[in-house]
């Protein structure tokens, strides 16, 4: 019987002008979003690769300078790559990069807001020149036209447009009583209508996206990341089911078509726009972060304090040095400077550390709060889950920046003893600098977290479906 309804609806579907416009437009938007995501993934891939090449190029340059020096070419103190302090602070650097995951095209997420490569030198990452992307703030504020957007915002709108009047239209058209005189229950009828719409919409969304993502990145399956695509598709289905369920529930209230449309739009507005924005506001109010302005000033104060703690520099030797001329003076003074300043900077950071730790603690508390309350809106659940699947979530970038901070300690530990003991770097040491590698969250971890999201979507969907189906029992079939 349901098969008959689906077939009948399919015929109606093909004759509906509105649908013949909206569905192809929807498909077009998805195709564009996939293209956009893939292009952005390509950009991230190219720029992280270029960042690593930049490191190699720099090291090559420094080694050829070393060759020159060994062959007796004259050089200045500021050109000597063997000087460990100067190398660690200025000449040498590592680019810590976060290459895009194979699934990055699924969601731009936070990858346009946070840098995917950072220059690591001696200086604290916090006080370094930033390598934020050159993105126009207007565009950042507007957000990307990616699959995440099409899914979270537009998919529910299309579902609403297609199903706000599945029952009310029959009522208003006067065909309802006739229809239900057939050997068919109201629930079968609704199921038939919804199934058809659901199959069309979900298969366009998942089919087109997966096709596009696989075409732009054929290695996903071979890399064993196919499950991520499956999880993504499951999330799409869960989200769509929730909205279809909601549409049925609203239809079951037996109101006018226009009232249904208003109620559903209000749900969309609340769940997609107001709840996330309000939660963001509450999170900020409950866990206010110390301002970055305060952190900047804290660092300055700590610098001054560290300097005061240190015994005054030996001005006598500097005067003596100044009496002589020549480059060796500069070399000595540079070494003295680094020997004094590097520990000084570490001391200043230690002084400022409690404020920075408070900032990080507050920030984690804010993030955790938002994470816990995401279940208030399926839109937030979906956004979080696809960010995890694409490795472009805030959590991914937090992970990256924690890894960069840890790596920087390695960088410092590598050079500091050499600076303090007045030892020049050897060629082997220059080549043997530890490298940075970003390790994304393990597949198991992502799977567990996204499974929670999927189950919560399923739960929400089941709740609205049960409510809708209970309500349908009391649906006034005739007249009113």
């Amino acid at each position, binding site marked *: 019987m349901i098969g008959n309804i689906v077939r009948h609806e399919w015929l109606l579907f093909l004759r509906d002008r509105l649908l013949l416009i909206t569905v192809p437009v929807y498909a077009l938007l998805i195709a564009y979003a996939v293209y956009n995501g893939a292009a952005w993934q390509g950009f991230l891939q190219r720029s992280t690769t270029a960042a690593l090449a930049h490191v190699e190029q720099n090291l090559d340059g420094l080694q050829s300078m070393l060759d020159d020096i060994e062959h007796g*070419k004259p050089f200045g103190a500021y050109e000597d790559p063997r000087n460990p302090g100067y190398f660690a602070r200025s000449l040498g650097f590592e680019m810590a990069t976060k290459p895009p995951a194979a699934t990055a095209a699924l969601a731009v997420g936070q990858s346009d807001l946070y840098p995917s490569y950072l220059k690591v030198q001696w200086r604290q990452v916090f006080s370094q*020149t930033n390598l934020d992307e050159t993105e126009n703030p*207007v565009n950042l504020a507007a957000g990307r036209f990616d699959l995440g957007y099409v899914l979270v915002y537009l998919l529910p709108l299309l579902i609403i447009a297609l199903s706000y009047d599945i029952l009310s239209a029959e009522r208003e058209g006067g065909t309802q009583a006739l229809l239900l005189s057939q050997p068919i229950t109201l629930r079968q009828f609704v199921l038939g209508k919804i199934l058809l719409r659901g199959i069309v919409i979900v298969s366009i969304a998942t089919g087109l996206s997966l096709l596009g993502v696989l075409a732009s990145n054929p290695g996903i399956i071979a890399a064993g990341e196919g499950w991520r695509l499956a999880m993504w598709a499951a999330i799409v289905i869960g989200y769509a089911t929730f909205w279809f369920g909601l549409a049925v529930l609203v239809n079951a209230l037996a109101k006018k078509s226009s009232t249904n*449309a208003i109620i559903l739009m209000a749900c969309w507005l609340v769940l997609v726009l107001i709840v996330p*924005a309000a939660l963001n506001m509450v999170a900020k109010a409950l866990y206010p972060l110390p*301002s970055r302005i305060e952190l900047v000033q804290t660092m300055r104060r700590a610098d001054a304090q560290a300097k005061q703690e240190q015994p005054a520099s030996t001005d006598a030797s500097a005067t003596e040095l100044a009496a002589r001329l020549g480059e060796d003076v500069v070399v000595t003074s540079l070494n003295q400077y680094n020997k004094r300043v590097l520990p000084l900077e570490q001391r200043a950071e230690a002084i400022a550390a409690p404020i920075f730790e408070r900032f990080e603690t507050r920030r984690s508390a804010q993030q955790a709060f938002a994470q816990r309350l995401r279940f208030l809106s399926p839109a937030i659940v979906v956004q979080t889950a696809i960010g995890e699947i694409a490795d472009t979530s805030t959590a991914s970038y937090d992970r990256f920046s924690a890894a960069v901070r840890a790596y920087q300690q390695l960088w410092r530990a590598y050079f500091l003893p050499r600076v303090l003991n007045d030892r020049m770097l050897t060629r082997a040491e220059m080549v043997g600098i530890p490298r940075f590698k970003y390790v994304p969250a393990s597949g198991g971890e992502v799977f567990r977290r996204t499974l929670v999201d999927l189950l919560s979507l399923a739960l929400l969907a089941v709740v609205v479906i049960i409510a809708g189906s209970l309500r349908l029992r009391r649906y006034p079939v005739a007249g009113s």
Partner: protein
Amino acid sequence: MIWHIARKEFTEITRDGRFLWSSLIVAALLLLSLALGASRYADESELRAAAVRETRQQWLDQGAKGPHSAAHYGVYAFKPATPLALFDPGMNDYTGIVTMLEAHKENQASYKPAQDATALQRFGDLSGAMVLQLLVPLLIVLLCFGMISGEREEGTLRQLLSVGADQRDLIWGKVLAVAMVLTLLLVPAAVVGGLIAATQLQAADRHDLIDLPAKTAILAGAYLVYFGIFIVVSMSASILMRSSSAALTMLMAFWIVSGFLLPRAAADISRLVQPTPSALELSTAVARDKSKGPHPHEVNHPNHIAFRDEMLRKYGVTRVEELPYSFIGLALQADEEHGFKVFDKYYGALREAHDRQNRLQQLAGLFSPYIAIRSVSAALSGTDIYFFQDFAAAGEAYRRNLVRVMNDDLMRRTAGQSNYAAEWQYRGNKELWAKVPPFDFDAPSLGTILQRNVTPLIVLALWLVASIALLRGLARRMQVERQ
């Protein structure tokens, strides 16, 4: 006649429970967002004022050190905000708030607040501007969609016209009623919002208050035009469409396309048309061009030698110690001037690229009044990208003066000394530091803002004029039944 119709409609709307609830929610959201905006603004401006004083004091009290070391020590500039920012945060969450002004580098402002927020930030901010730009139009749509089509469906339109009501009066009366209802809702909210904002005025820096009353007035006017567009468009749809339900569908689609689809699509297209280099490409290009400068500290570098020889020739001497100014001072300043050109070239190109992207998006306002009002509102509230660029430009001009004053002193005071002695032995003092004035920044004037927003202002006016013309035409030719 119009007045009678308006009064009748007004009473009807205000007695409708649905209107009461939805407008209460909108008003509550508006007041809540204004109050939170005000508290955020107050916290930030207090902190900023303290930080501005502290960074100045740190600069003055940095103690005896070489002028070049002082230039490296530098000062911080903190991006200010006008009190209207509490109403419309605009791009503020996506622009840096602190710029380090120091020797050698034109640093870009750091710490976009969105980077420290949760991912929820990307769903948008609940601000006064968001309520007025997105929620109030939706309220208007809900008020208007059935106004004519409903009368037609219930058969009352024929009655009304048969008793001699002029159809134009009927339509404009209804428009007036909706305008009155909105006034009832928004005027109290505006008064409360104004009071909230007024509490911020005493504490505010006078540089942030430039043209504030005029900016506020124009802002209010722009929003009136924006609401007017939605009233007239909604009324037109109610006449034009077959049924209330069709009118509602069409208006919802308009609201979604204008407020959600087009802003993103326009941003995306502007990026395609006018791409920007990656941060890495930009920084490598800057570094590459900067290294064509005189390399003041690298005595064996060919550029250094060339610059030294040029100076020796210029002043007709044979040793750097005989130059009338210290060589290191000359070289540092020459290196800075070379840097200025490099920064102007690359960062200037980036600013122009952003500018072209913005102009393109402003044109997209022809299809979306939301894009036009967003641009005008952020500009008048001092939270648009141009306010940010003005701030960045002021910071860079300040930095250039700072390094010039430092290098100038070094050049003159250490003439005849070796490079080492000049850089590491000579010490400047507070008198020198005080030669650099404190950093201040004037918010752009109303004239500048209007000039930058000619396109969105014209677009808003066009929308209003075109929609009124449409409604007039429809009012004249309206039929009782739609074929």
